[in-house]
């Protein structure tokens, strides 16, 4: 379930960023602060997104940046930064982005449950809207918890 992978320390909202790089750094920082990844993972996420391009933007307004397990991932985990103003990632169909779900995984299989649960969560537009409307981290945790129950 999605809630099993989201530490409340890895959630922030109202984040003001100037561009997609800063958006990813903010999300990567959450993974480091919640002990899911090492410091170097943050810049690896930025580099990986440079390589992959806007392909990390998987749905309208939603990006799922990540790096490789060997870039300093310590566990399978999710982080979420809700931006105060959306930024462009260069995706023709899905820009601009204001929900940035960063994740880490320890190998190419370990995060299967996380990624499937995340896709099902994002697929429901009302979940994304609820995150955008949330005013506290507690509210966000409750939205994710509720979705896990209904999944």
């Amino acid at each position: 379930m999605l809630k099993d992978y989201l530490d409340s320390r890895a959630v922030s909202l109202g984040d003001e960023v100037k561009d997609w790089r800063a958006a990813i750094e903010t999300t990567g920082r959450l993974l480091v602060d919640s002990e899911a990844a090492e410091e170097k993972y943050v810049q690896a996420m930025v580099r990986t997104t440079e390589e992959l391009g806007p392909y990390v933007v998987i749905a309208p307004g939603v990006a799922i940046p990540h790096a490789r397990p060997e870039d300093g991932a310590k566990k399978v985990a999710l982080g979420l930064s809700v931006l105060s103003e959306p930024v462009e990632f260069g995706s023709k169909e899905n820009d601009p982005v204001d929900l940035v779900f960063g994740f880490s995984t320890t190998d190419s299989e370990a995060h299967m449950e996380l990624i499937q649960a995340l896709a099902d969560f994002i697929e429901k537009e009302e979940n994304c809207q609820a995150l955008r409307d949330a005013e506290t981290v507690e509210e966000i945790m409750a939205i994710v918890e509720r979705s896990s129950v209904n999944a």
Partner: protein
Amino acid sequence: MLKVFAVCGMGLGTSIILKSRLKEALNKQGVDHSLEVTDASAVAGQDADLIFTSEELGEKIRNKKAKVVVINNFTDRKEIGAKVEAAVAEIGA
């Protein structure tokens, strides 16, 4: 058997979602198929019937035989199901 490819970046994020959504749609529609994930350069030399990918990667795909289908929302079962159905009908599999 329909040879289907999902063309992706690194294979950790979007590609996993796309592969599972495609598999679900193809099975639901009873399409006899094989499904592989690969990257934009590797797919050029593949014997493929259908290639699913993103708008940006779609521009990089050079495969003369296959029909390339662009997915916008990788989480959306409705979009992916409809595009699978249309593509399968079009190539007459």
